[in-house]
């Protein structure tokens, strides 16, 4: 469904963030993108929806090359790709409801969105999503009143209300405590499952990635050095991705003993 062809990004400074990346993501597959800081994970995700312009190569979403689209067509294509951010990136001074509805901006006209006159179907869907992530009672709160985990769930709602085919997830758990991190990862993978969404999840925490996703891609210096099942991540492989370190503790089988609290 999503195919990256020789995707390359060279920054003005001369840093090659991505070196001819080839990657194929089938429909409904959730994959984790791991790698050290500066390996190009964020750049790769942003090159897909062109928040960062790729230097060369192609991004094919259902056989449409996103890198060739004009601004109008690009906006339409962006609606198909929901994005979830590390620091949540909610509009702090707007309410939870407004933040969720902002996911529909690609579908409604300027004045309707400016006057907050969203179609009733969008509002119904927003309430349904907030209920699904357990934040229905917060709909009228301002986004900056929420805790980290709650904000990230609002961010997830904003991405899902776009009705996307693909989720681009940039370090969703980097600012969260370990328990909330698991809850958020579980929520994202569950929702992808429910809706048959493909997702690319940038993540630092290898153990967390192994717990929740069926496929892991390792990036180092802008190149893919690992692509396979999470069980195949041996100490050797991790050394290849991250460099020399004692990996035994990281890949120790993690018991998921907190199965119950999906999304309280």
């Amino acid at each position: 469904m999503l195919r990256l062809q020789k995707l390359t990004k060279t920054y003005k400074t001369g840093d090659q963030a991505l070196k001819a990346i080839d990657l194929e993501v089938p429909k409904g597959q959730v994959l984790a993108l791991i790698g050290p800081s500066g390996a190009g994970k964020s750049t790769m995700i942003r090159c897909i929806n062109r928040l960062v312009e790729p230097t060369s190569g192609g991004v094919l979403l259902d056989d449409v090359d996103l890198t060739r689209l004009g601004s109008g067509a690009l906006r339409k294509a962006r609606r198909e790709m929901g994005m979830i951010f590390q620091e949540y990136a909610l509009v702090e001074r707007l309410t939870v409801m407004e933040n969720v509805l902002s996911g529909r901006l690609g579908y409604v006209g300027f004045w309707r969105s400016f006057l907050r006159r969203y179609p009733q179907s969008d509002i119904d869907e927003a309430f349904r999503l907030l209920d699904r992530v357990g934040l229905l009672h917060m709909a009228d709160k301002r986004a900056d009143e929420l805790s980290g985990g709650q904000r990230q769930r609002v961010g997830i709602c904003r991405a899902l209300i776009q009705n996307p085919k693909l989720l681009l997830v940039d370090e969703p758990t980097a600012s969260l405590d370990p328990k909330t991190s698991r809850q958020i990862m579980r929520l994202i993978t569950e929702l992808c499952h429910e809706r048959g969404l493909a997702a690319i999840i940038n993540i630092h925490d290898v153990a967390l990635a192994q717990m929740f996703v069926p496929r892991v891609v390792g990036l180092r210096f802008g190149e893919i050095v690992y692509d396979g099942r999470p069980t195949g991540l041996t100490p050797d492989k991790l050394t290849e991705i991250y460099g020399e370190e004692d990996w035994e503790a990281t890949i120790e089988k993690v018991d998921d003993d907190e199965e119950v609290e999906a999304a309280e």
Partner: protein
Amino acid sequence: MPVLERDDAHIWRRRTTGQSLVRWFGWLLGVAVFVYCWQLISESTTWFFVWDAPRIANDIWTRATPPKWDYITQLGRPIWDTLNIATLGTIIALILAVPVAFLAARNTTPSALFIRPIALLVIVSTRSINSLIWALLLIAIIGPGVFAGVIAIAIRSIGFCAKLLYEAIEEIDHSQVEAITATGASRWQVMAYGIVPQILPAFAGIAVFRWDINIRESTVLGLVGAGGIGLQLSASLNVLAWPQVSLILIVILVAVMISEWVSAKVRGAII
């Protein structure tokens, strides 16, 4: 920060000997320049008038007190004009400053090469000329009266408001803009959802701050004939009606105090 090693101990001083000498010499130079300037000023001062100053000041004080309280009936209308000049001028300035600020901010300008310098030029040129001078020019162009005052205040305020606003725009959190862009929002929607909510508190703060300044500026516009209470002030000064002058000064003081109180309240409510 020099660290000296002596007898196995590290001795730390804030400055090296050389740095201390340079600083000492700098202070010496500063004092010398001050003394020299003092002498220059002293030479070109007519000291006779200065020695005379307390007596003259006392003389004016006795003439000006008590204020001519019943003159207040004639001041209602001028002070109302002054408030209107300040308020209308501020509103017009804000309307014009918003687009200028968006054109001047590095992250929202359509063209950093051509349009941004023009916007910056507007900001600098309107800021650099005092509102009294704007008023003088405008009186020559559109005639004396309140309208000239309003326009003078408006032009003078554009640069100030636009400058503070574009700095606020440049300091916004970019990730919120990114998130709105990623939903497929149009340029205007990104502005309305990603940028405007972030700069709204700054905007409100700038508006009341400038309004507060403009009340003070508009009290003197009448001196050159641009309406408001300054007109009464200059008329009273011309006929040496000191009790009227003192009453006008009291009225201005009260108006400014009220405006400061209002703007402090408004700013407190926003933040």
